[in-house]
């Protein structure tokens, strides 16, 4: 079978086995009429099932990430309550110092991230509509609906990361380093982990963006954007949580 650069994901009929009791077709169908070796390792289910599978995988990933950030948050609260006995003052004290956040830059970054969520959602819905057309057998025109929004999302994503680097630079110039005190350490750790995870999602979006110009199946691109959109929205909510956490505990 020749490799077509844009495979439209049409529901494929299952190939039945050699008879015998119990061999009825799976209601979603199993992919392929050959030995299944298309070169795509997970190409053994129809489009809809592949999408559902990746969605569940992303939900579990988001749960894992939530636990990771929950661990960091709990650690932060624990550390905020740590005291030590001060011999001179003869009482238990906390050695916490307040954290002065550069709010202007942070609000700009937040705005950029939220807008990128909106543009990514537009892109995702465009791709979903396109895939529904494809399932009906209508091959929609290429480069329609998704590329502009996807491109804008990627640009905004990079802008957010650049903005975060600016925030860290502002803090560094004020002498607030990673190791300076409790709050600064957790601020860098939480925002840094968030940025690293966001960058990972950004790479996937970048790949989905340029993949239309190399041989990549439309179905795979749609799934990539769909699950990355969920991931991106989670990153947005997580960012708001981190921002609020650092603000309300700034001391």
């Amino acid at each position: 079978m020749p490799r077509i650069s844009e495979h439209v994901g049409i529901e494929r009929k299952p190939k039945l086995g050699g008879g015998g009791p119990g061999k009825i077709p799976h209601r979603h169908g199993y992919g392929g009429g050959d030995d299944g070796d298309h070169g795509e390792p997970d190409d053994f289910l129809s489009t809809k099932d592949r999408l559902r599978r990746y969605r569940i995988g992303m939900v579990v990933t988001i749960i894992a990430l939530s636990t990771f950030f929950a661990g960091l948050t709990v650690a932060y609260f624990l550390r905020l309550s740590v005291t030590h006995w001060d011999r001179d003052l003869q009482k238990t004290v906390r050695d916490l110092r307040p954290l002065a956040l550069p709010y202007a830059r942070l609000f700009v970054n937040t705005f950029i991230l939220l807008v990128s969520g909106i543009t990514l959602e537009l892109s995702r819905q465009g791709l979903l509509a396109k895939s529904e057309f494809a399932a009906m057998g209508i091959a929609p025109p290429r480069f329609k609906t998704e590329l502009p929004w996807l491109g804008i999302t990627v640009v905004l994503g990079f802008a957010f990361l650049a903005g975060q680097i600016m925030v860290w630079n502002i803090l560094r110039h004020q002498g607030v380093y990673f190791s300076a005190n409790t709050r600064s350490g957790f601020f860098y750790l939480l925002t840094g982990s968030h940025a690293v995870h966001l960058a990972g999602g950004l790479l996937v979006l970048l790949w989905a963006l340029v993949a239309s110009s190399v041989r990549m199946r439309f179905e795979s691109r749609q799934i990539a954007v769909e699950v990355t959109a969920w991931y991106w929205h989670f990153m947005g909510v997580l960012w708001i949580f981190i921002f609020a956490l650092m603000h309300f505990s700034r001391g």
Partner: protein
Amino acid sequence: MRHPAPITTQTATTGLLRRYLFSTDHKTVGLQYFFLSLAAVLVGMVLSLLMRIHIVWPKAAIPFVGEIKPENYLAYLTMHGTLMVFFVLSTAPQSGFGNYFLPLQLGASEMAFPRLNMAGFWITLFAFLVLMAAFFVPGGASLAGWTQYPPLSAVASAGPGQGRGTDLWLLSIGLFCLASVLGAINFITTTLKLRAPGMTLMRMPLTCWTWFVTAILTVLAFSVLLAAAIMLLLDRNAGTSFFVPAGLVISGAAVDHHGGSPLMWQHLFWFFGHPEVYIAILPGMGMTSHLLSVFSRKPVFGYKAMVWATIGIGALGFSVWGHHMFVSGMSPYAGFAFSTLTTAIAVPSAIKTFNWLGTLWHGRIRFTVPLLFSIGFVSLFISGGLTGPMLAQPALDVYLHDTYFVVAHFHLIMAMAGVFAIFSATYFWFPKMFGRMMDQRLGALHFWITFLGAYAIFMPMHLLGAAGNPRRYSELTGVQYVAAMTPLHRFVTVAAIITIAAQFLFLVNFFWSMFKGAPAGENPWQCTTLEWRLPSPPPRHGFGDNVPVVNHGPYEYSSPGLSSQAAASDFLMQDAAANP
């Protein structure tokens, strides 16, 4: 009904690298994990042998190793624990057998995310190599135990092995956490989305149930360990003070940290650490339930109760981490809460135990080697488990913590029982994986020596612990009351040497049978689950397009209806016709 000819697509187009090394085939990935665990367990066993020899003959010069100095002993015990808990018990039952057999038992042709699966293995292998590298860096491997409590683990000047050795340890475990979570995502998605038609959740074999619950525990627990490991790495290398308090003076030099909390590490670590031991044992429990049913020719006693007990153990397992910290100075009220919850976990565990016994009761038992190891599992689980409620009481734990009593407890219930489950799974599934039977007499001999050896090694440790012998001490021969226990230590060491030597029986049996064992048919054990429909070994794409349709539960042995046919067998395959 006979299965049509297998779908083999073994064209010569896929090269050696693609087929055996960088394969996305879940069976290959499963075997890769299994052999990684085998390598890890051999290293771990050698380390334990060195430790036992050192305890009894401290000045002995061992070939290739020389004299074991105290820092060596501590490094050995750290790496022994790390290798065994992570790379053996968290890898072989779940990632090894789970990857191979979960899709087959569910009637799927592949795991949900095959490339992720392959990536997970390679990250785990890399983590293993990074851990092994710790032995060869200046200072050697870490000394702080597999629990890595700060400030010892947080300050590089605190001892040999606390420099690069600990950094490598943390890097290795961080990678392992990542790989485990990736694997768990695969397991959960596969179980939820790729079951064959008719395979409802309550028709899944109990092995699939335990792999599923273990994957959920993995997702929730390992992320916390990763967070803690990152913070410890930052404390060591970036000058932060997450765990290091102010005012520390180590080796005469003041440590430049302030405001950290060593207790926080304990909380974070044990919040992971307790679910980790359930991750290590739950697949073994599923395996045991499965095998006891197969070889008693009876359904599992109380299948639904087993499912709910598994879920209960998993859920409750997150609430009991404080029982590792009774002596840390926490509030007695917190101790009371943790103690109560820990004792509560004995309830689902006991349900499982009684159900195992109920499965065996009045069964037409076939004393095969897998069954022997399953019964061994039950025995060791009970023996190790009974000391759990003892240690769960703070009043007792204050005395027994950090003694050999704890060592006996966790080795019996986790190491021995868990390893027996791995053995039983190996003997059971070897015919399916390699198309040949392992030698049964050699297997039985292996079982008896290992079983008696396990008790001979760890039962005396209860006495040692109760008498006050502390753990993680390189040499106590100079201490009067401990020196008096040396004869018992000698007994334990001799038993350990014999038991470890007996493992060669297993290795010889395993590798010899791979090439020269008696050919196994499709279903040598006469088991009902779906993997026994496929040829041995299964073809590249498993069921492929011939999706089985499941009409029966997984434990239809000796069902009353079967006697009405001219039944040649006492069991009903899961995908047999609906009304036979």
